[in-house]
């Protein structure tokens, strides 16, 4: 089955590449871009490092058709928390190995293809992506329709995506029907093979998005976006154990269903006096695990000359914890202690706030006459860097609080248009 999907994907991508160059098609514009990103998370003992390269192409053989394809990867190395316990347990078990850090090495590969049919004021886009990791596989299909009305002053957009994902897990003993007796996955060896000690769980993800963009004046526009998502399936980290009591640790156990909603409002305002644009974004989020969050993001972008753009960005984020979140399920004063039938050691489900600051430079060259090096119509070189800090209100590493944990992200990209 996996081979079948792989062959189908390869055939589809080959078709996408070959089709535009076949007889009768005249390529008007072709675009190639590549991006390279590094992520480094310094503290929390993880030293997580991720290198993410990508390469994409787009050809427009006719004015009404765009064909796109691409590849991206994540090369991950570092460590993650394998066994989670908090202050109460650590206080009575100071030598307990409650915060072991498991080595993580993974390689995510993703291939994607997309076709867009364009009219004067409408477009219809459909695409497919397939990705694979040592312990996770994903097939994703998406469609998008967009229309401009009222002299392009109003843009309406509807999108839908469905993921058919699967995640590797260990086979639990047939007698252990209670999740409190399940063991975490040791490593990804044998995943997605006939190994009898390994199994897979399905995850279905439906994502819906509706967007309304509006130009109000020659220098002011807004966008309102609603996003809904339904996730159904195994959502725990199969590698992570949580200490539940004296001598008891069990694989992380989270609900299998989650409904998520977000409403995002954006505005862009051009300030003529300083010839710069300000963009502001506000997002509210809620899900059925009782996580509520708010995000505010501001960007300031300005042209320096005719080919260089500089952008500065700030972002703030705050969320509440999931209803079943606890830093230590073994007990202790609130907010510690058991929280119903589920348990997690996931810091992303704990209450925290974060900040991000960054900047971006974009250098675009579009010659008025002729082509660059005789072949390129234009090219664009961009670089960005961001630093982000996380302050966890309850999450600890064996009782040690984590405040202002830093991560660094840098990206460089090149786009060439032929």
């Amino acid at each position, binding site marked *: 089955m996996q081979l079948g999907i792989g062959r189908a994907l390869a055939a589809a991508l080959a078709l996408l590449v070959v089709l535009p160059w076949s007889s009768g098609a005249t390529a008007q514009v072709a675009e190639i871009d590549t991006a390279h990103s590094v992520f480094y998370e310094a503290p929390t003992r993880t030293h997580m490092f991720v290198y993410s390269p990508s390469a994409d192409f787009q050809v427009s053989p006719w004015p009404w058709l765009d064909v796109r394809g691409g590849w991206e990867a994540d090369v991950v190395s570092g460590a993650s928390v394998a066994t989670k316990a908090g202050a109460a347990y650590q206080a009575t078990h100071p030598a307990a190995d409650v915060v072991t850090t498991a080595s993580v090495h993974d390689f995510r590969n993703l291939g994607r293809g997309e076709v867009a049919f364009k009219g004067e004021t409408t477009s219809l886009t459909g695409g497919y992506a397939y990705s694979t990791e040592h312990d996770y596989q994903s097939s994703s299909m998406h469609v998008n329709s967009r229309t401009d009305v009222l002299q392009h002053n109003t843009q309406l957009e509807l999108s839908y995506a469905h993921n058919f994902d699967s995640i590797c897990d260990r086979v639990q003993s047939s007698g252990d029907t209670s999740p409190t007796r399940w063991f975490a996955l040791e490593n990804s060896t044998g995943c997605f093979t006939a190994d009898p000690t390994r199994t897979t769980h399905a995850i279905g993800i439906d994502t819906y998005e509706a967007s309304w963009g509006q130009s109000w004046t020659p220098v002011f526009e807004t966008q309102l976006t609603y*996003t809904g998502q339904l996730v159904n399936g195994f959502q725990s980290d199969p590698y992570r154990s949580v200490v539940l009591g004296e001598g008891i640790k069990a694989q992380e156990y989270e609900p299998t269903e989650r409904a998520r909603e977000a409403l995002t409002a954006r505005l862009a305002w051009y300030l003529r006096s300083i010839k710069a644009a300000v963009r502001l974004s506000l997002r509210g989020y809620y899900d059925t695990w009782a996580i509520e969050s708010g995000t505010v993001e501001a960007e300031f*972008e300005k042209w320096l000359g005719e080919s260089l753009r500089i952008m500065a960005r700030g972002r703030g984020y705050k969320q509440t914890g999931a209803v079943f979140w606890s830093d230590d399920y073994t007990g202790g004063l609130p907010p510690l202690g058991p929280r119903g039938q589920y348990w997690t050691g996931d810091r*992303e489900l704990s209450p925290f706030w974060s900040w991000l600051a960054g900047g971006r430079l974009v250098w675009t060259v579009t010659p008025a006459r002729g082509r660059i090096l005789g072949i390129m119509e234009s090219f664009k070189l961009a670089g960005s860097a961001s630093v982000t800090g996380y302050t966890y209100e309850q999450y600890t590493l064996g009782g040690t609080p984590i405040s202002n944990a830093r991560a660094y992200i840098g990206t460089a990209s090149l786009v060439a248009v032929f």
Partner: protein
Amino acid sequence: MPPVPSNRRMLLGLVLALSGCATVAPQQRAILADPTMRFDAEGKHEAPLRHAIDNREGSMGGTGVSGGGCGCN
């Protein structure tokens, strides 16, 4: 076809009414077409940052629907 709830009809009506108020003529759209005024002008460049942020927060939404794996260790 099931009846559309009245609050949704009101919202749709409000959107259409507000949209009709906007009168930016095509020859006035030069600034609106500038990359600095577009919300996703550098979408591919920003994708790795969004991916990193999404994997470290309990939230999602507002940046498109296309998926493709986890990469979330």
